[in-house]
């Protein structure tokens, strides 16, 4: 699926894609990385070391796939740079703690250099900032001028 998205960008078939690596409550097993248990129950690990080990494997696997995707985009030349230079790719989860179903302090990765995004940083956003502020910021970086988006209340400043 990441290959399809990369090709779709490369051929300019679309400028926007979204993909879920696993649906909510996914019961997919990952025998290919040695995890025969269903995904969702593992996230309710309650601190059990075995569950944590397995869920770590799954999360690592997902991030590796994401890295593969970024690598593909970076390998595609486009206008003096790479396709990744002209993209903003957001990876993350809508829950920070699956066990607690907490949607605060979401772990998110924003890759690409669209609209002057600068990488190599960790931004600790002020507590309780709506994630839609980040979406509004991304929109502005890819050339869609908005003041807010969804239930956000502004545009997150990603400069500096």
């Amino acid at each position, binding site marked *: 699926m990441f290959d399809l998205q990369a090709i779709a960008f490369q051929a300019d078939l679309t400028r926007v894609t979204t993909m879920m690596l696993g649906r909510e*409550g996914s*019961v*997919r*097993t990952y025998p290919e990385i040695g995890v025969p*248990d*269903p*995904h*969702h*129950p*593992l996230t*309710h*690990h*309650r*601190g*059990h*070391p*075995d*569950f944590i080990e397995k869920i770590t494997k799954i999360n690592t696997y997902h991030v590796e796939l994401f890295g593969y995707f970024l690598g593909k985009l970076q390998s595609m030349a486009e206008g003096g740079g790479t396709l990744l230079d002209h993209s903003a790719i957001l990876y993350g989860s809508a829950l920070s703690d699956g*066990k607690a179903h907490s949607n605060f302090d979401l772990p998110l990765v924003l890759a690409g250099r669209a609209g002057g995004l600068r990488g190599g940083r960790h931004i600790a956003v002020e507590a309780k900032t709506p994630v839609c502020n980040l979406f509004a910021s991304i929109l502005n970086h890819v050339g869609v001028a908005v003041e807010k988006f969804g239930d956000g209340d502004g545009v997150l400043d990603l400069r500096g």
Partner: protein
Amino acid sequence: MSLRHWVPFAIASLCVAAPASATSSGVVDFVQKNCVACHNSKSKAGDLDLASQLGEGTFHANRGMWEKVLDKLKTGQMPPPALPRPPAGDVAEVTRGLETEFARQDRLVKPAAGRVSARGLNRAEYNNTIRDLLAVDIRPADAFPADDSAFGFDNISDALNLSPALLEKYVDAAERVVRTAIFGPERLKPSMIHYPTPVRINDSRGHSSLPKDLFHYDLTGLSTLHSAHIIHRFPVDAEYSFRLVLNGHRPNQSEPVHPALYIDGKLVQQWEYDATDLEGQIVEGRARVTAGEHLLSATYLKTYHGLPPSYHGPEPSKRPAVALISTRGKLTEQDIETLRKYGTKIKTDSIETRVDNRFESIDVGGPFHQVTAPPAESLRKVFVCGHAAGKHTDTCARMIVTNFAGRAFRRPAGAKEVDGGQLRYGIELRIHEHTFLEGRGYAAGGGCEPEVGIRAPVRQLRPEFTGGSSSPPVAVSQEHPGPGAGQYAAADHGPWSRRPPEDGPVPDGHPGSGTAHDRGGEEHGCAVDGKTFGHSVRVHRLCEADV
């Protein structure tokens, strides 16, 4: 007597009903007696002058007017309500007379129904025709391009066009269908089809979805919400694997559940699964299934049995009513061990109370160990000569083709069609789109039959079918002998189509591979200039070698 009374009387006296007859003269008499008083050139009631329209041939010349007269009489609108009516019997005779006259006229009309297009088969019809002709149900038309439709219908002759792509598909379909009928089904590689079954039972804590009566219910589970049903088309008689992915929950300390698989309403396999968190748990099995569509049902047997006693259901669970792990605070050593034993089969952080066991998906894999022999019914339909394989004679070919062509054309096949040099050794019958091409004429030439090969070329495939004869095979080749010469030329020439493949012989195993050369015969191609027939393809005739 006042004038008022006199007038109706006078008019009534005009209505001396002459005996009306079924002949035109009877109609004329009736009209003269009952109608022309008002409907004449002077008073022209309703702008209708009947008096002057009673001459010879009036019922034909003024058909439209007389149809209106008939209508008025039949519905009783005439005579108008105020005036005295002629006897009903007379009216009936007159209307009958008019209807008879109209029917007589209609019978004499030469019908001009217009041009009827040669009728192509749409995909559904093609599949059914193949099945009827050869008892082969591989449904090749499912891979055809979509039918050209018109006005929302896919069986409009004029709309069903033949494109080069479709003709190629016909050729390929013919190959596969005949091979299946005579040599058995294609050997398929196993694959798996995933059917998500997204029924979800909303049973949140504190709000139960349980039925009121837990004792009288469908013990098979087939009609409960806990079950899942899909229809799958099995390509061939074979063994198939079935994987049921479970989902949902059972209350803490329930007895194991019994997921089961039904095929066409018959129980095929059941399992026992011990878990109260069923999310993502899997049971699998295999079964032999015949080709075709079958209903697969995943259910839970006795789904309300085995619940904890507090649910007051049948056969309550005998397990102790204690939580399997602690539900608050950090996991104890005991908890860790318990979770090592049960894995994700139990809830880690609560006492489960829900009864929403359901299915996540049904995955069908296969075919494994498939049947490879040709269907008996197909062989019966093809080899009407009654001889066993290897024991055919020269007359068998003719018998087979005559029978087949007759069934395909839905009329007896003519001797010229059967014998006209196109068929030599009846073994393999290629089925092209038949009725569509029937009846089209083509420029003859090169000794080939002026009919496009519909049931077309019969090709020698195996010596045993001809008793080991080494007679030259029938050529079924293109205009250009050479690569792919075992295939049909159908749509390979002309400005609308591409040239035949020139990049090498057809690879082994591919349908059509193996030229006549390989069979030790002499291959001779012949093709005739075909006429383009109105669409975008030019068809070559597939004809016999000139040997």
